[in-house]
């Protein structure tokens, strides 16, 4: 590839900066909605072909044939949120007190028009049982829709996913 072709395909620095800012703002908002149990607003972030995946263990091949902590399509996300909204989901009644910090946000790629972004997080979850510390990497598949982004995929790779995990009933 020649130097001039490189420049044509590479968005100018200002455009890259703007895209990253938009991705960051989306990720921060998604985290806040999850922390605050704003189920309606969080659900509205998803596209119809959504995939919300929290793998268990190290094997990330053939997820449809392997046990995952969460492997929700759009319909399963709705069911999960509907259960939370009943107020009788005991593992979230009362809801966990939550705050997460998200950092190391990068746009790592592009796939069929979707932006692939990755970040690290640490979340503190407080329940009567005690404070649980959660940490890991999140890989987002974000889809530009007009001036906004929607979430088509969220994969949460917990650092301790190969170990026994305590109950994880909030939106990680």
């Amino acid at each position: 590839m020649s130097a001039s072709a490189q420049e044509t395909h590479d968005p100018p620095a200002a455009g890259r900066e703007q895209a990253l800012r938009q991705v960051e703002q989306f990720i921060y908002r998604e985290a806040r909605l999850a922390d605050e149990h704003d189920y309606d607003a969080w659900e509205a972030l998803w596209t119809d072909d959504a995939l919300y995946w929290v793998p268990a263990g190290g094997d990330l091949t053939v997820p449809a044939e392997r046990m995952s902590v969460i492997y929700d399509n759009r319909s399963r996300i709705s069911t999960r949120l509907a259960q939370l909204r009943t107020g009788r989901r005991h593992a979230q009644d009362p809801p966990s007190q939550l705050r997460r910090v998200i950092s190391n946000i990068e746009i790592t790629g592009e796939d069929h028009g979707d932006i692939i972004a990755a970040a690290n997080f640490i979340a503190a979850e407080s329940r009567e049982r005690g404070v649980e510390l959660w940490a890991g990497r999140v890989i987002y598949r974000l889809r530009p829709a007009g001036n906004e982004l929607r979430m088509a995929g969220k994969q949460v790779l917990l650092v301790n996913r190969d170990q026994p995990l305590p109950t994880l009933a909030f939106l990680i």
Partner: protein
Amino acid sequence: MPVDGSGQVPVLAADRPDYRRLIERARVHSSVYTDPQIFADELARIWYRTWVFVGHASEVAQPGDYIRTTIGLQDVIMARGTDGRVHLLLNRCAHRGNLVCEAQRGNAKSFRCPYHGWTYRNTGELIGFPFNQGYGGKGTIEAELSLARVPRVAEYQGFVFGSLAPDGPDLAEHLGEAARELDRLARLSPEGRVELTAGWLRHRTRANWKLLAENETDGYHPQFVHGSIFSVTGSPIGALYSDKSAAVTRSLGRGHSENDLRPEFRKAGEPMRWFGTTADRVPAYAAAMRAAHGPAAERILIEGAPHVMIFPNLFVAEIQVFVIQPLSAGECVQHSTAVQLAGAPELNRRMVSQSVGSVGPAGMLLADDTEMYERNQRGVAMLAPEWLDLRRGLARERIDERGLRIGGATDETGMRGFWQHYLSLMEGA
């Protein structure tokens, strides 16, 4: 904790609690869930003596395959030898006691301890060690220093059990009436084989292991604990566990118990209803079952899978398998996976999907059970009323045509059977 008002736990000569005074026919004392001494006693008298489920043959399908598993607090290697047999070894080098295997699974016909290089066959024999002149050369001490073997290993329908006691009842005697429930599960495979190959979720649970074992066939809790998900999905499961249900709770003897839902499924008479679907939505599976079983297929497809707790740690809940791993009086780990049926790819993917939604740390069913276990563990630490009540359905129990004790769908018949067997193991010589 005081039992008789004297402020003292009554003890036997060897400083052991008098279990007859802690476990009665229709109530159990709180201390059996909280006392570290009782937990230590359980390790010796239950976990290191009776048959304990360790894994499934399909998890070590090839010669040289191994996985790490547990019996009580013991770290156990389950390996398939080149002889094709499954071997259970304690994961402890005979030299300095280091863990020999670190990976959760792998394929190796021999293991080499990372500390000093001692090398063992996957059947336990010590092959040798570096610089053997320090031990007087080759063939001097190898025979006396092997990996410790779990003295008894046996399988049933591919479910592998180990017993750390060199003798005692054999596996067939231990399983007793529960064996036919594993047969029922295997029969749902067109090839007659269950496989546990979808991987395990591990759920850390701050509760005594017995709260889980009791709950597995407690038909009284589903409408309360799982009401949220039943109402959202319109699930008919709740109705199976009501006072109007024709289902029964059966004590199978030796601490095993089941919720027998077949009376309800027979009433409906619809193949695959137990799986929440119809035969025409899984046509390849239904055809394979009819080819394999002939006219008997209809009954098999109507009656579905078992819901059976096998003492002390294996629970088959229709399409899921759970294993309870005790850690201490107040903590355990629940392992869960989806049943996979050989020759039923159409069903296997659905079973994984349903299981992932239901079980494990985020499961829409099991996270709520686990919340109950953990609150229950805090509750039983309270001083009074001291006892947990087990009398539900006692007055309406009866003996069925197989000579087994049954109660209604919501009765505590299974729990009473669990405690009777527990008591026989704990108070024995």
